[in-house]
């Protein structure tokens, strides 16, 4: 579903990605772990073209992304790709001038061109699924962080994407709110949704991940099942990382 190979990217003198490669199969929940500043978020944002990269290849469901700056001709490709790959941000980024329902309807209407009725129908089902049907007419700022992130997940799901990218979805939340968001994500993973997650939540990794990728200094240094990576890490850097996170 998602194939990344030998990705490099630099911000000025800093090399953020140094030949990162990984693959996410359909139905898989892939979790990327690693120290802050290791390039995890950048890698994730390259997958739906929010970031450019300097060399390497990315292919998502048959659509290839080119290295180098974005050009106008590729915009259609990027839009097509993004409609198939949803994204959930650390800071939620709900649209403050819309209600909760309108936030969830915005992708189907403004990106997919669905009718208002159809979009409303999707929004109703999804808000029920994330447990926020009663908040449909509320505004984002009246919701807790955990509730906002659940709305953001519903908004990403409303496009019925083939894969969803999660960029540290619980880092801005307290433990209780973290639990409610991870519960929704675990439910999604169990239902076979393809997911690529950047996270520090080791409990979630253990319970829900199909594969774990360890990213250090712009490279994936170790990949495997949660048991393989968490219980018998091969690389000393992975061991150091796990010691720090206390799992």
């Amino acid at each position, binding site marked *: 579903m998602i194939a990344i190979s030998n990705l490099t990217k630099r911000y000025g003198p800093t090399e953020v990605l140094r030949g990162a490669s990984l693959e996410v199969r359909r139905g898989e929940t892939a979790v990327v772990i690693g120290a802050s500043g290791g390039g995890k978020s950048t890698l994730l944002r390259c997958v*739906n073209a929010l970031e450019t990269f300097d060399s390497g290849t990315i292919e998502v469901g048959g659509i290839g992304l080119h290295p180098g700056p974005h050009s106008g001709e590729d915009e259609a490709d990027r839009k097509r790709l*993004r409609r198939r790959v949803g994204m959930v941000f650390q800071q939620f980024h709900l*649209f403050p001038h819309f209600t909760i329902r309108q936030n969830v309807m915005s*992708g189907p209407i*403004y*990106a997919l*061109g669905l009718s208002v009725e159809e979009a409303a129908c999707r929004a109703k089902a999804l808000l029920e699924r994330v447990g926020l049907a009663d908040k449909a007419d509320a*505004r984002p700022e009246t919701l807790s962080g955990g509730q906002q992130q659940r709305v953001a997940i519903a908004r990403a799901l409303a496009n019925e994407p083939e894969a969803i990218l999660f960029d540290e979805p619980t880092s801005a939340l307290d433990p209780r709110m973290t639990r409610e968001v991870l519960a929704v994500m675990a439910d999604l993973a169990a239902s076979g949704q393809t997911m690529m997650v950047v996270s520090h939540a080791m409990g979630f990794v253990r319970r829900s991940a199909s594969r774990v990728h360890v990213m250090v200094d712009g490279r994936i240094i170790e990949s495997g099942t949660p048991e393989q990576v968490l219980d018998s890490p091969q690389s000393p850097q992975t061991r150091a990382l796990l010691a720090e996170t206390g799992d």
Partner: protein
Amino acid sequence: MPAALAVAAMFSIMPALIRADALDDVRRRGVLVWGADQEGGGPFVYPDPADPDRVIGFEVELAELLAQALGVHARFFQADWTTLPEFLENDTIHVVLNGYESTPGRNARMLSTRPYYIYQLQLLAREDDQRIERFEDLCNPPRGGRYSVGVLGGSAAATFLGDSCGSAVAAYEYDGNTNAMAQVRSGVHDATLQDLPIAVFYHRKPQGRGLKFVGPPVGRGYYVMYVRKGETRLAEAINAALRSAISDGRLRAIYERYELWNNAQEALASASAESAGAQEATGLAAVRRYGPVLVRSAGMTVLLSLASMPLAMAIGLAVELARRYGPKILGRMLTLYVEVIRGTPVMLQLYVIYFLMPKVVGVGLNPIIAAIAGLAINYSAYEAEVYRAGLSAIPTGQMEAALALGMSKAIALRRIIIPQAVRLVIPPVTNDFISVFKDTSICSVIAVVELTKQYNMLANNTSAVLEVAAMTGLLYLAMSYPLSVVARRAEARLAGLPSRVTA
């Protein structure tokens, strides 16, 4: 209480203390301060081409002649033509000496001297224009059309034209004489009616090139000087000096130097301006007389603002979006546009659009269209900056979230970014809207008479200055206050819930 009485007493005495008799003041200081406007131009008072710091003109020589007769020096005071009576009344100048025609309104407000010149009005048109042969033709245009005529705002020509033709001509009132001539030459107007001295003076100068005298002079009236009401001693001294200059031919000599002498002037020796003003309206009567014309010009103010501001907002938004999301080179050009427009006065921009463009492009704009365009362009630069601030205040995550959902950049802007920015920019845009209401007054430089210009012209010709000023102030308030209310409502409404997403 005694203190209050003392203060009251002081105020009642003070004007008397300050207002020493004008003639005594002239003698004590050794100067006669006379007020005029160089913008009116030749042959009255205009900058010496050889030394622009100096003024020359027949009125300069006349002022020197008067000063000499009073045994003092003449000192020129520059002020806007229409505001000269205010400077007279606040004691800045002793006498207004600048082609002021004797009118009942002015005679009621100020004290007139005897006439120093008998003027007539001359119609000027383009040399190749065969349609108008006499002044009377102006009032009878062919096929129900209307001739467009430029005149000096608030002048006798403007009044004469209105009295003679009424609404059968479209009259445009300018601040300076040569501006009206230029716009006839460039085809914006069909003709201009000028005081004969002006027509003669500019006929052979570049400003008058391409124009011809149409028919014999029309109308007739007196140029008089004005001193403050009650200053009979100064008026008498000036009259005596004038009488002796008329009888010994010194006045004629001055007029001959400027080619102003003609047979009509023979009557100067026996002419006397009606010293008493006509029955002037004051109080409620003034409101009834001047109210309608002020309301009409307030309508022009509303038209200019309501037409130009939405345009400015649209252009400003387009400029900012192109700067932000368009190609780099376009962005740099637009930033230059914003800086040039913001960095130059709107008056200059109006001049360029209205006076210079016809010379370059060969096509003139209607003054109202030019005014709307000028204001819209000027304000577009400010609106672009307002939108820049508004758009910058929207977190980048909003655009990323919209793009991540698969929206195109255009839809993301229209549905996600701009609606949020609009709410932020309502207060500054309202501010600009209110200030454009007041800035419309600048359009008088291109012959658009709106409320402020109308006020100036009326105040210059009436003694009911207080009434006219109060009405003008109220009209401005009546226009800008509802705007604030509407803007506040809009802000409140946008902060509320949009009922549903519409595609």
